[in-house]
């Protein structure tokens, strides 16, 4: 059995201190294997985003351990963590986080710019990513002039541009209408299928969760074991 890409071992996270202390995550364990798609499902406020942030090394757990390909994340140097987030991880957020006044291309190549890639190569790789998402004709447009679906495709292009191993998507369809949402979902799953990119999707949408290989249910900061994956009925025609 291969080492999991990411392995959370009984991780917990609290916000605030003293009387205001709030345990957002109270000990969750999960192994994520290369190439799989996994959904983190739960109600709003249950701690899904907190778990994802810990898995993506955006935050440090207060208890438990997080292993990155078998290495304890605590032992990784800041530089190594930055490299992982820049090159191995891609991020897709519900609120897009595009710089409104900058061009679509400039937004997409931001991870490459951070990595120190030269302008020529940046352009070439950015355009390639945009072509994959059928946004090449919008490359020079300002990000604020795109529609919601186009914005999310631009965000996916940005997540893809550095050829990541894992894509983290936090409510990727939360701000989109059903049709557009479905298109974005298809794009994400095709990346998982065709390129073997590991997909970690945070969602409260049961239908989206069902399309993933595996689901982990979170309730009040704990894994809800009463809802085993088998308990979910897969919608007809969905990817099995």
């Amino acid at each position, binding site marked *: 059995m291969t080492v999991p890409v990411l392995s959370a071992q009984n991780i917990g996270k609290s916000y605030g201190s003293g009387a205001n202390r709030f345990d957002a995550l109270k000990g969750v364990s999960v192994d994520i294997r290369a190439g799989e798609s996994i959904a983190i499902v739960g109600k709003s406020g249950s701690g899904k*985003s907190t778990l994802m942030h810990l898995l993506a090394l*955006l935050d440090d757990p207060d208890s438990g351990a997080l292993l990155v390909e078998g290495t304890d994340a605590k032992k990784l140097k800041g530089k190594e963590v*930055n490299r992982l*987030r820049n090159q191995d991880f891609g*991020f897709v957020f519900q609120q897009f*986080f595009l710089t409104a006044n900058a061009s679509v291309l400039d937004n997409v190549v931001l991870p490459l*710019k*951070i*990595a*120190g890639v030269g302008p020529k190569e940046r352009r070439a790789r950015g355009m390639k990513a945009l072509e994959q998402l059928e946004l090449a004709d919008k490359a020079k447009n300002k990000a604020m002039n795109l529609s919601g679906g186009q914005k999310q495709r631009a965000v996916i292009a940005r997540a893809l541009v550095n050829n990541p191993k894992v894509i983290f998507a936090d409510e990727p369809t939360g701000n989109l209408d059903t049709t557009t949402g479905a298109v974005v979902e298809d794009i994400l799953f095709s990346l998982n299928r065709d390129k073997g990119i590991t997909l970690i999707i945070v969602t409260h949408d049961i239908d989206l969760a069902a399309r993933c290989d595996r689901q982990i249910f979170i309730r009040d900061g704990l894994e809800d074991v009463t809802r085993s994956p088998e308990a979910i009925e897969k919608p007809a025609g969905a990817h099995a």
Partner: protein
Amino acid sequence: MKFVDIITTAIANSFRSKLRTGLTVIAIFIGAFTLTITSGIGTGVTSYINSQVSAIGAADVLTVSKAGDATATADDGPAPYDPDKATAISLGNGSRPGSTIQALTDADLGTIEATSGIVGVDPAVQVTPDYIEYDDSGKFELTVNAAATLTTADLAAGEQLDNESTTDQILLPTTYLDTLGFSTPESAIGETVTIGIADFAGTQQQVPATVVGVQNETILGAGAGLNQPLTDRLHAVELSGTPAGAPQSYATATARFDLDASDAEITAIKADLADQGYAAQTVADQIGSFETVINVIIGVLNAFAVIALIAAGFGIINTLLMSVQERTREIGLMKAMGMNGGRVYALFSTEAVFIGFLGSALGALVAVGVGSLVSNILATTVFENLPGLQVVQFAPSSIAIIIGVVMLIAFLAGTLPARAAARQNPIDALRYE
């Protein structure tokens, strides 16, 4: 992130909020403009003074006079009469009207010459010719510039006075040319003028002199310069017919010392002379007090400019804190995507430095334009009689220093917001809604 990317991104970021950046730039502009103008005035005035008093001809000369009686204050009443003391004589050029100092006698000259470090001493004889005339075209009053042999003239034509020459030389100011009947400075060179001077009995005598040079009007006393032989000849005429036995006395003497003497050695000579009761000043000392006044004025103006720049520094802090606030998400996103805190810091610092550069470069540029224009207008109007005076002059090095200092202030102002940005937690930024 690469260095060039940090710079281009920072510049692009500073233009995102044009109004805010613009207002900050104006604040810096005002400070840099003032600093550039005041430093320009400093450069202009100093370079004019230097052209007036070229240090070369005057560096080895002390003007020596008898020191006033330090004890004779108003409360003490008059000092007791001393028959051995030379009579007080009225000073001509340059002293307060009616002021007198003790005159130097030949014995004093001997004492001064014997002082260690002094290689020679000449009494400064003051001659008062009656008129100057050229080519029978009329007689005009002649003012003699006593400082002429102490300084190197700012020449419009011809050569400097030569004290070693055997000919009697005169250096005319440009203002004399028209009156005497010369069309150009060059046409006066080599011509012979006639100087009229009265002897002791009051009989007028005529002395010819050759014009060797024409001098631009100077701030160090107007008038014509005479070389030593001509001065001596005129002095001889003035003294002819003096009753025998009348003691010779002089207001001042010029003492020469070794040209290579260090400042410390010059100070020692002056102290030595002071102990013996003589006051000695180099030309630099005489000019120094004038320069001190100008430096104080410039210093005050500079202080105002620096205050303006410090205020502008707070403007930079404010501008950048607001943009850190506005770009919270963007900073969080960049950090989430693996940008380290140091680069985020560099990004905001660079933006501050760029705003500083923009304000100071524009301020300096406009100051150079306005200063040069005003200076040229003044040179042909108010300062018409002082040829060569460009009140505002710009040295590239001081402009570079001003821009550099402003950029440094901007960098320091930027550290606070840049640190706030660098410390931002990506999670807080991405949750921020």
